[in-house]
């Protein structure tokens, strides 16, 4: 049986390869925040308070493009709704913890942390303290994200505007979903959502950012119907 600190360390080690993408992503986010003209303190605060890379980029990008706060906040909610799924899966391993611990652990759940901890917890179901894996992976990623955001904020004030660093935004999201291009159903959802976004781009309040994903999800439910019929 492994000790708490062993499991914590295992979490840190398992998340380490993902830091190769988290750190540059954090730097890019910090730099984009500055490039889009936001205050350094507010840019950093999003890393502390929201702590969700993709949603933070969506947030600053929409606000800089003239979207209302309501639209930007709602978009953050839509982007981060996938955490409902992660939480539902991880809850089975955290059932025995008290409420305070659950509330603390939840803050540290991320895409990458979920991916590695879910594998570990699945393989070590009967081990005591194995939730320390979640916190080991989570805190390691959290520290990396905070430091790299700050580094990006500092770099962002040096990088010239002509380089068009904004183009890193779609590229970052391409990197996140490109593996799903192997699945036809996902490709269809992507095309429906993406084309809808282009067509609806000029509807009021930048609400395309919510309407297009909803059309995409509608498409996914239609696809699911066909899949289930088979």
């Amino acid at each position: 049986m492994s000790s708490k600190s062993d499991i914590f360390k295992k979490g840190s080690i398992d998340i380490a390869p993902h830091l190769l993408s988290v750190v540059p992503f954090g730097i890019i986010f910090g730099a984009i925040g500055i490039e889009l003209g936001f205050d350094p303190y507010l840019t950093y605060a999003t890393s502390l308070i929201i702590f969700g890379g993709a949603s933070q980029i969506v947030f600053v990008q929409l606000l800089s493009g003239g979207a209302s706060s309501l639209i930007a906040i709602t978009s953050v909610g839509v982007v981060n709704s996938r955490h409902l799924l992660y939480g539902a899966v991880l809850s089975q391993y955290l059932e025995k913890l008290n409420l305070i611990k659950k509330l603390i652990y939840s803050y540290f759940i991320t895409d990458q942390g979920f991916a590695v901890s879910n594998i570990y917890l699945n393989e070590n179901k009967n081990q005591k303290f194995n939730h320390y894996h979640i916190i080991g992976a989570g805190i390691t990623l959290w520290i990396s994200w905070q430091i790299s955001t700050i580094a990006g904020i500092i770099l962002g004030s040096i990088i010239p505007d002509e380089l068009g660093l904004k183009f890193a935004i779609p590229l970052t999201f391409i990197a996140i979903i490109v593996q799903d291009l192997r699945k036809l159903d996902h490709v269809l959802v992507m095309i429906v959502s993406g084309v809808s976004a282009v067509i609806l781009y000029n509807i009021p309040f930048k609400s395309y950012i919510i309407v297009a994903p909803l059309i995409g999800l509608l498409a996914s439910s239609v696809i699911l119907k066909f899949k289930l019929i088979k």
Partner: protein
Amino acid sequence: MNWLSIFIAGVITYFCRFSMVTFIKSEMLNEKTRLILSYVPSAVFPAIIFPAIFLNETGILVNINDPKIIGATIAIIVGYFSKNVIATILTGLISYWIIILLM
């Protein structure tokens, strides 16, 4: 961007994180909901990607040989085969820079 909007966005995100862990057991999510949630990334991110590539600053469609389309295409090819996040972003960005500097 102000403190209040960041705070509300943070609270909503945190709610998504803790609500399921705290109040719901995974069995309570029906299969259909779970399947649909798995499509969320594929539904959300293209809504950001497509306009950022195919539209210019004023919201008009760009030409097919626009540097953004070429850069994104290269990034997709590299990402698909390398499965490497940094390689995807960097090759896309560097090819974009090469094109805008040459043109």
